[in-house]
């Protein structure tokens, strides 16, 4: 079975500072990896995904994540955060090549400080 661990439940960071949200996964088979974002009072939106190919994936709003198979990690980074990035971020995993359920981590709440 797959599992996802997000070690940080909350991450405070000053505006325009860099941020990293950590995600580690566990699986005995190859996986797809995702980051979803949930803005206040909204549903989850896909931020970025790793399916295959380049281990570094980027979103349209400046976030990036790197798949590290040896460390079983998929950390999310942004070099300079904006107040609008305030949200909860969920890392998720599913089995590769299977139309399968996606398993979510517990989420990390990103607080942007002025």
């Amino acid at each position, binding site marked *: 079975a797959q599992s*996802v661990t997000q070690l940080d*439940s909350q991450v405070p960071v000053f505006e325009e500072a860099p941020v990293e949200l950590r995600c580690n996964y566990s699986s005995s088979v190859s996986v797809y990896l*995702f980051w*979803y974002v949930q803005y206040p*009072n*909204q*549903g*989850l*939106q*896909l931020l970025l*995904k790793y399916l295959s190919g380049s281990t570094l994936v980027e979103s349209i709003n400046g976030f990036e994540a790197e798949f590290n198979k040896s460390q079983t990690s998929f950390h999310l980074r942004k070099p300079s955060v904006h107040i609008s990035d305030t949200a909860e971020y*969920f890392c*998720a995993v599913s089995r590769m090549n299977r*139309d399968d*359920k*996606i*398993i*979510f*981590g*517990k*989420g990390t709440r990103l607080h942007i400080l002025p």
Partner: protein
Amino acid sequence: EAGVVQSPRYKIIEKKQPVAFWCNPISGHNTLYWYRQNLGQGPELLIRYENEEAVDDSQLPKDRFSAERLKGVDSTLKIQPAELGDSAVYLCASSSLNSPLHFGNGTRLTVT
């Protein structure tokens, strides 16, 4: 394209009462999911449909929860009777072979 539509947006009921949630997935998405998200937690899968067939309902508490997806499009999730511990946000999502999971805005259930 229109997104996943859920209703109602909020629901407050007394314990032991029944409640139902409705979901309209994105057109053409064969796979439909119901997730439950407790406060401070990530979403947890309750049931997954492929067209009208429930292919994974292992996490659905079948003594009080039921779901259906007639004609393989809209879906309803029902709780009868509701308990205090059922208070959560119920999320519907849909996907297709070449499309990732798209979520609705959810129904926030409060059981008093």
